[in-house]
């Protein structure tokens, strides 16, 4: 099974029906794999921070959500994570596609790429990276379980090693 389909099947296996997202090309591949299944509901976000609020509201109402975004989007989420999701103990998965690492052509992605994990660590958010398809079940499945056990947001980073890089000269 290809990684987008594997991710979608792991979300479903963990009762995560609600997908809130700001797309990039990587997230787009996951959305494409999910859209065929009527199990999933989608919310297009205008800004990633909204997703923290929406998923909080869904959780309060008894529904599990995932936030899908590019690493850049984490920068837009910091205060909502720090002052809503973490202190109110709202568990959910953040699925982050990483830019600014291997093979990056765009200088304006490098700094957030380098800062990504350190921002998560500063906030005390557990994070895991997936480099190979065969790690998905353990890392993504395990991270989801840990999020709901700890009642905290947890991040899974999809690295360039897994998803490839944008081939622009």
């Amino acid at each position: 099974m290809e990684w987008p389909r594997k991710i979608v099947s792991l979300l479903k296996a963990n009762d995560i029906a609600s997908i809130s997202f700001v797309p990039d090309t990587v997230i787009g591949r996951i959305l494409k794999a999910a859209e065929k299944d009527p199990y999933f509901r989608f919310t297009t976000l205008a800004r990633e921070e909204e997703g923290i609020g929406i998923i909080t509201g869904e959780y309060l109402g008894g529904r599990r959500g995932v936030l899908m975004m590019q690493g850049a989007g984490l920068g837009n989420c910091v205060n909502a994570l720090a002052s809503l999701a973490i202190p109110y103990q709202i568990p959910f998965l953040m699925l982050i596609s990483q830019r600014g690492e291997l093979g990056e052509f765009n200088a304006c992605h490098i700094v957030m790429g380098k800062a990504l994990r350190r921002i998560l660590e500063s906030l005390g958010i557990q994070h895991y990276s997936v480099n190979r398809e065969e790690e998905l079940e353990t890392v993504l499945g395990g991270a989801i379980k840990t999020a709901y056990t700890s009642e905290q947001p947890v991040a899974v980073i999809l690295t360039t090693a897994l998803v490839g890089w944008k081939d622009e000269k």
Partner: protein
Amino acid sequence: MINRLKATRYLVEQLSDEPIIASCGNPKFDLFTAAEKRKANFYMWNSMGMASSIGLGLAVARPDRKVIVLDGDGAILMNLNSLTTEASKAPANLVHIIWDNAQYQITGGQPTHTDGKADIEAIARGAGFKLALTVSTFAAFKKVLSKILFQPGPWILVAKTDSSDAPGRPPKSPVVIKNRFMEALREA
């Protein structure tokens, strides 16, 4: 001008156990002062601007319940994009009330942009809301409430209020707030 605490008290009297999301700043003080014992109140101590998004998520997750958001002008101005998301998702059970006193009251009354040219009802319409209203008297507030609490939305109600202070202070523990609120939702 509407007295915000009086309007909050009146609103709560019209409700049974519908969930209310109260923004950080003064909306949460008014709500706690008006209805301290009410379990279905969610008090936000920070994350300014997120009330609209929390309300949207809850309204979508619980289409069986009317969901009320008590927002402020300063807060919604910080998350204006959420109006486009609300209007696009358009849950019929969402009632989004924005107390507009044209100032950042809690930090000393510095004017917001609604003190100048910004018109939240017009912004909401531009974002895609078909049902958006502004009221500036208590009589008009009462009249509009009798409609928006019972007819399908989503509704935006901008209520022009004064800047009186409510004395009540909700619990400080976010987890206590969350657990009480979720328990109320499960029971309903």
